[in-house]
């Protein structure tokens, strides 16, 4: 298979190599230029890195949903970004009510727990409905069929929430406690970003423990190895799939609340871009691989936040921040082309639908 490609595709290979070399040269040239010009101080870089970490941990949480569902079903849950949005958007109304009554400032911990629970429950409910109506009937259909159904579900959810909650941006209230900075090891860091990183890390640990140490987690791993063999071992595959969707969605719902802490607003279209990026993160870390998704998320967040300044500024590009999504999408495309198995993943055997 590989050999046949190599013989036939020499020109193609040349083109791909040229593509790789150009991208690497651009990155090196830009980095060199930026560092020599010295536009950014040490504080700037630290700010970029911390912001990247907090954004990356949000991507990591969303990426878990993609990676786990891909693991058990071998399908891309295109609507996962909307599951993330639904939780954050619905929890906004709780946050807003707390904000208005002043309870958010009096008891931020309890109110944030309530917001988190609402977001996670909503996301889970939405994901389970989507799984039941849009995916389960297509379990044995040719491979493109569930993907198209997922794209349909994604647009349906976006515009359903637009119709239900309105099309404007909604400003998430922010408790007084989280305004301003904490000084940690001599570095001033925005409080909300600290909370985001710590919260996401806790979630990831809990999930990792669940997948690795509980019986249900073991069943999930078994199903992702081989569905039929797992069924023969007495595992209820349908139940495991539902649990997988629910877990991924709960993580996405939590990610939605953290996202609202960093960006302080929600919108019906907010799920799309983070969804794609989280998918990138999942692929980056090796799809189907839980620690890989966490690493991929953090890595993508860092590159996206440091990248525009480091790679693009040095090339003399105006307003490099407009191109931060270009960096993310380029990484996505390059990983898909050159290493579809990701950083941590083993090479996938090409499985046919």
């Amino acid at each position, binding site marked *: 298979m590989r050999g*046949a*490609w190599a013989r*036939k*595709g020499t020109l*193609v290979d040349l*083109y*791909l190599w040229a*593509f790789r070399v150009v991208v690497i040269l651009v990155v090196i040239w830009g980095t060199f230029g930026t560092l020599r010009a010295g536009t950014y101080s040490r504080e700037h870089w630290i700010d970029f890195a911390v912001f990247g970490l907090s954004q990356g941990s949000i991507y990591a949480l969303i990426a878990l949903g993609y990676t786990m569902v891909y693991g058990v079903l071998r399908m*891309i849950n295109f609507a996962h970004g909307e599951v993330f949005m639904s939780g954050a958007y619905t929890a906004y*109304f709780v946050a807003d009510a707390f904000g208005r009554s002043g309870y958010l400032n009096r008891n931020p911990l309890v109110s944030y727990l309530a917001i988190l629970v609402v977001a996670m429950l909503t996301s889970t409910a939405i994901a389970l409905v989507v799984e039941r*109506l*849009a995916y389960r*009937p*297509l379990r*044995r*259909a*040719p*491979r*493109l*069929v*569930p*993907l*198209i*159904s997922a*794209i*349909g*579900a*994604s*647009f*349906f*959810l*976006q*515009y*359903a929430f*637009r*119709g*239900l*909650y309105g099309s404007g941006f909604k400003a998430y209230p922010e408790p007084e406690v989280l305004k301003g900075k904490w000084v940690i090891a001599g570095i001033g860091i925005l409080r909300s970003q600290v909370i985001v990183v710590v919260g996401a890390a806790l979630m990831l640990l809990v999930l990792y423990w669940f997948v690795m140490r509980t019986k249900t987690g073991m069943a999930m791993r078994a199903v992702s190895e081989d569905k*039929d063999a797992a*069924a023969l071992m007495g595992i209820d595959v349908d139940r495991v799939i539902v649990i997988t969707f629910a877990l991924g969605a709960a993580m996405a719902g939590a990610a939605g609340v953290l996202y609202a802490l960093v960006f302080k607003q929600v919108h019906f279209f907010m799920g*799309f871009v983070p969804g*794609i990026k989280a*998918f990138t993160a999942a692929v980056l870390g090796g799809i189907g691989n839980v620690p890989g998704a966490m690493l991929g998320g953090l890595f993508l967040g860092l590159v996206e936040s440091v990248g525009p300044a480091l790679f693009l500024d040095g090339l003399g*590009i*105006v*307003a*490099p921040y*407009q*191109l931060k*999504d*270009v960096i993310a*999408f*380029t990484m*996505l*495309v390059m990983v*898909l*082309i050159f290493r*579809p198995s990701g950083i941590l993943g083993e090479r996938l055997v*090409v499985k*046919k639908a």
Partner: protein
Amino acid sequence: MPMRMDRQGWWNAVRKGLIWGGVAVFVAMVGMVETFAERQVIIGVVSFGMTLLALAGVAAGFQAARGPAGGGRVSALLGGAVAGAVVGAAVAGLLLVGSVLNLRTMFVSASPRLFSLLSAGQGLHGWYLPLLAGTALGMIAAGASTLAARLRRPILTGLMSVLTVGVFQELLQIMLGGEGVGAVIRDVLFESEGLLPRGALILFLVAWASSSLWIWRRAAVHVWVARRPASQQRGLRLLTLGIGVSALLLLPHLAGPFLSQVLVLVGLFALLGLGLNIVVGFAGLLDLGYVAFFAMGAYTVGLLTSTGEHGIFHFSFWTAVPIAMVVSLIGGVLLGIPVLRIRGDYLAIATMGFGEIIRLLVLSDFLRPWLGGSQGILAIPKPTIVGLELSGPEQLFYLTLVLCGLVVFVASRLRDSRLGRAWMAVREDEDVAEAMGINLVNVKLLAFGLGASFGGLSGAIFAVMVGSVFPHSFQLLISIKVLSPIIVGGMGSLPGVLVGSLALVGLPELLREFADFRFLVYGAALVAMMQLRPEGLWPEPVRKRELHESEQDAAEPEKVLA
């Protein structure tokens, strides 16, 4: 005949009622009922919004009666009534909750007007009205479901024609014109704001009668046609085709500039769809970044012909179009090479990534000096043909019609060629296709390149139609808007693409208020199509067989396991 239903029958009726009740509440809360309340189907009797709600009740009743209940007409009627009542109860529940609590802090569409619509203006005291209406509708639907198809079909046709004419009354009134026979018909059927009750009755009777007549005489007509000699049969077929084509050619004159505008859009998306159909339908490569080639074509024409600040050569449209097609073709091949080895869903995501990268680059300040950034390229002149400027929508309609015809021809020849069969082989199974000696690199790149060049062609038309190009016009949503008609029409089917574009692009444009719900309906349509008719509304015979075969294949192992 037993009068009682068993427990399963009751439960089925309640379940259907709950499902459709949920749909009805969703339709109300998402804002469709209120928005479409403006559009009267029959003046003073029923609006399109209420029709949507009523349809939920009808569907519930129909499904409940068709369920596993069995046991004759009475239990079917009972089941329908129960299901309809549950739908009505859901709406009544919404009414009660909405009157007690202020839902509007959360749901923007939960306006007082919605609740007054739901209760026919009675407010909280009208809570029983949806319940009664639901029960009645469910019962009627259940009754209809027990009728023989021979009797039911004409009634359905009659109702559908009243609904269609009522919804599109503005357009039809324009088409009937201000004088002559048309005006007389118009005065009988319509008032200036919509369809009159007497008009609805006449329409229903006419449609009912002609449908009954058709069902009654259909077999005889077929026999008559089959008995004609072959030359006459061909003549008849040509006659129908001729009538269809001339109706299409005359349409803009009959219906005025607005309809022409809509038809140009339909043509544009049909053109895009035909291009994407080569990639997705023929070769089975799901490309979500197709909008990039649309953008390439539009920007090439914009840069080459614009008389504004970004214009370079001030070429004429006719010189620029082939260049735009070549540029998009090269773009298609260049973006195609890296993704050659990616399959299925990864391919979809990778092409989507490319599409977004191109849009973001065009939008950025970095390329602003050349491509105009978010302001785009302005002042693109209209094309001229022997001194005549193709400025209005009518002229552009003929342009797109001619190009569509051309592309349909090219695509159908491609499909039946050696290359087309190679594409189909790749769609079915890449590995087997390669083993059969098909050069995957060439075949796939040809699909990407040819599809892209058709996309570039539609981009060129788009540029002159709008007169300017903005990066905003090339969002991912456009790719979805092109993909949906292909899927709904039938992947790989040429008439399917045309029908799909007409239904998914044309109808929403005609219903102005529909704009907000367009993608909602697209999404639901994609999900529903994948389950009910994955081969599309107008499938290629080969494709249909493929999908059904694979279903059989998939069913086999289940049996083995069981």
